[in-house]
């Protein structure tokens, strides 16, 4: 099968799903669309012969992160189409900005594509190769990323903790809540 067809198909799905992420009013739909996007991206990885990344992408993104998102959505009960729509001027501004960036990026990276020395190597994406690299050359960053995770975890826990101890905070929260309800 011509990889061009596969690529085109995958790209089509990817972009479609990505667009739906942005367009959909319901956050739940967005999440699902995003998961689909991630799947298609993983497929791209496979196509590129980078199996490790494909797997990790699925596990980390489609698995862990997106579940987190869903969890938060459920937790906050946000699965309604309550989001107010921004004005048309914002729509134009956003469209123009992203359009411009698109043009600029394409223009920049196209030059890069010509510089690429095409010496593809089937082993580049293998788990073995990557594992060797990670535990030799990138050992320190690898360990550091572990610390980063720890910090992120602590931070997330700290932030997410309900500050019941602090009366003042509680008061403010109640006030706000009252204001919103009223």
């Amino acid at each position: 099968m011509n990889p061009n067809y596969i690529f085109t198909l995958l790209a089509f799905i990817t972009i479609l799903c990505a667009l739906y992420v942005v367009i959909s009013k319901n956050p739940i739909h967005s999440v699902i669309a995003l998961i689909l996007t991630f799947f298609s991206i993983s497929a791209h990885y496979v196509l590129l012969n980078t199996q490790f990344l494909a797997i990790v992408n699925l596990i980390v993104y489609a698995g862990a992160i997106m579940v987190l998102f869903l969890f938060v959505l459920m937790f906050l009960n946000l699965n309604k189409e309550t989001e107010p729509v921004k004005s048309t001027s914002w729509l134009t501004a956003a469209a123009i900005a992203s359009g411009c960036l698109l043009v600029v990026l394409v223009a920049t990276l196209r030059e890069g594509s010509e510089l690429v020395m095409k010496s593809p190597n089937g082993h580049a994406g293998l788990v073995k190769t990557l594992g060797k690299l990670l535990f030799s050359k990138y050992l320190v960053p690898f360990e550091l990323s572990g610390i980063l995770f720890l910090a992120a975890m602590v931070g997330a826990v700290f932030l997410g903790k309900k500050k019941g101890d602090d009366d003042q905070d509680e008061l403010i929260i109640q006030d706000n809540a009252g204001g919103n309800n009223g």
Partner: protein
Amino acid sequence: MGNSIFDQLPISQYIYLCCVLFAIGLFGVLYRRNAIVLLMCIELMLNAVNLLFAAFSSYMGDSNGQVFVFFIMVVAAAEAAVGLAILVMMYRNTRSTDVSLMDKLKG
């Protein structure tokens, strides 16, 4: 066989795809008001970058690029965790996840 993809498919295709994904993500970041969707769009942009990294890495036969993708994923995961925690905090305080309400940055 495995190499044929690199011969038949020019890398520019990936560049276009990634740029479009990135732009879509950006558009979402700018246009949407729901903070969760915002975060998701950021993930989308990160993925676009990841994909590009991976593409270049494969085309050039250099694994270093993929290591970076790995690290980006690490950072993205951490970012998503912390970001969502902040979001929950914000929701507790304002009963909303509308970023338009986050206008207290003015000095």
